C-alpha cells in the first residue's frame, strides 16, 4: 500500500506530514506501507492508494480519488486517528 502526502508546493508541509505518518506507522508497528510526498500539480490518482491533504487544498485535490482531509496539519492525534482508520479499512491493522 502507498500513501502520498500532498501540499501546494510539495516541499515543506507534505514532507512534514510524510514524516509524521512514518512515525505513526512505526508506533503502530505497521510495515510494508510506502509513504511519500508531492506537490498538487504532480500528484495523479495512480500515484498512491490514499492521499493525505490539508483542508485548504482539499478542493484542488478532490480528483485524486481516496482522499483523507486533515483539519489541522500539526495535530498528531488527528493524524493518528485518521491513519489508523485508513489502515483498518485496508485490513492492515
Amino acid at each position, binding site marked *: 500500500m502507498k500513501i502520498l502526502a500532498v501540499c*501546494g508546493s510539495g*516541499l*515543506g508541509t507534505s514532507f*512534514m506530514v510524510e514524516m509524521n505518518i512514518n512515525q505513526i506507522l512505526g508506533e503502530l508497528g505497521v510495515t510494508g506501507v510506502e509513504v511519500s510526498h508531492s506537490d498538487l500539480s504532480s500528484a495523479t490518482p495512480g500515484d498512491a492508494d490514499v492521499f493525505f491533504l*490539508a483542508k*485548504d487544498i482539499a478542493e484542488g485535490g478532490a480528483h485524486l480519488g481516496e482522499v483523507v482531509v486533515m483539519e489541522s496539519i*500539526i495535530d498528531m492525534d488527528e493524524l493518528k486517528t485518521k491513519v489508523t482508520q485508513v489502515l483498518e479499512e485496508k485490513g492492515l491493522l
Partner: protein
Amino acid sequence: MQTLIDILSQPAILVALIALIGLMAQKKNMSDTVKGTTKTFVGFLVISAGAGILESALVPFGAMFEQAFNVTGVVPNNEAIVALALSEYGTNTALIMFFGMVVNILIARFTRFKYIFLTGHHTLYLAAMLAVIMAVAGFDTIGLIAAGSVALGIVMTLSPAILQPFMRQLTGNDNVALGHFSAVGYAASALVGKLFKGSKENSTENINFPKGLGFLRDSTVSIALTMVVMYVIVALFAGPTYIEAELSGGTNFLVFSLIQAGSFAAGVFIILSGVRLVLSEIVPAFKGISTKLVPNAKPALDVPIIYPYAPNAVLIGFFASFLGGIFSMVIMIFTGGVIILPGVVPHFFTGAAAGVFGNATGGFKGSVVGSFVNGVIISFLPVFLMPVLGDLGFANTTFSDADFGVSGIFFGSLANYAGPIAITISLIVILALMAIPVKKKKAETK
C-alpha cells in the same frame, strides 16, 4: 589529493555524502542508504538542469523589459535565484547548509532559543544566499563556510523566535514555531494589526468569503499564469519588431512570450523536484538527530501550518499583499532604478501568512493593512538586497521572502563597511547576546 578535492568540489557528490552520513547516523539498512544517497545525488543534478531552462526563459524577459521600459525588471522567485546561485556556489552552499544545521542544533542545545528549523528548502535557499554574500564579502573558503554556517544557524533560530509571541497568540500554545524565512514580514503584519486592536473581534472569519481561488495554491499553475500575464504585457510594450528580430528568431512575439512564460514555470517545476529529492533524506536525519540532542526543542515548521487558523485571512492577505506589491511597483516606476514585479507565489504564501497574523492581532482591518505592509516590505527589500549579491544581482530574479532581504542586506552592508572582519565581529556579538540571557534567567530562578 587532487582527486579528493575534485570529488568534494562537486556539490552533487557532496550533498550525497551528507545524506549518506545522515542515513548512517540513523542506522538505516543497506537498501535505504543506497536509495537515499543516490536520490540526493541525482536531485542536485536535476536542480542544475532546471536552472538551465529557467535561465533561458528569463534572459529574453530581461531583454524585453529593458527594451520596453529602459529599466531592469525583476521577478523575485526563490527557486530561480537559488538554482542560478547553485551553479557557481553549489559546494559552498552544501557545506554551509550542513554546518548551519549543526549550528542550529548547538544554539538550541545551549541557549534559551530552543527552535529547530525544519523547513528544509528555506534552509537550502538561505545557505545559497549566504554562500554568495560571504564570497562577495571577500572571505577565503574556510572563513566563508564558517561565517556562512554561523549566520545560517543564527537566522534559523532567530526567525522563528521573533514570531513566537504571535504564534502563541494564534495557536494558543507554545509547542510549535513557524519556520519560514519571511518572519520579518509576518511580525510587521502582526504589529500593524495591533493598531487595530479595537476591531479585533471583527475577524476575517466572520465574513462569508467566496471560495474558488484554491487553484492558486498549486504553484505550477500560479507561476505559469503570472508569468504569462507579465510576459505578454512586457512583450506588447517591447513590440513585435524588436522581439522577432532580436530574440525569437522570427517566431510571432506573443507565441514566443507564451512559450517562454511556460518554460519559466517548467524550470521551477523541475527545480522543485530536484529540491525535493535533495531534501528527502537530509531533513528527516536533521529532525531525528535534533530531537535526540535537544530536549524540549520547538520544531519550526513550514508556513501552511497556520493557514487553517483563518482560511479567509489567507485569501484576504494574498490580495492585500499583492496590492502592496503593485503599489510598490508604481512607486518604483516613478522613482526610477530597478523595478520589482509582484510575483504571485511570494505574495500568496507570505501574504496569506501575514493575513493570518494580522487577523490574530487586529481582526479584518489588521489583516488587510498588515498584509499590505508585508507586500510593500517584500517588494522593497529586494531592491536593496540585489546590490550585495555580486553578479547574481543582475539576474532578473532574486530572493523573494523578507528574511532573505533583511539578513542579506545586514551582512552585505557590514561587508561593504569593513569586509569579513565586520561580519565576523557581528556574528560573535549576536551569538554572545543570544547566550547571555540564559545565565541571567538561571540566576533569577536560583
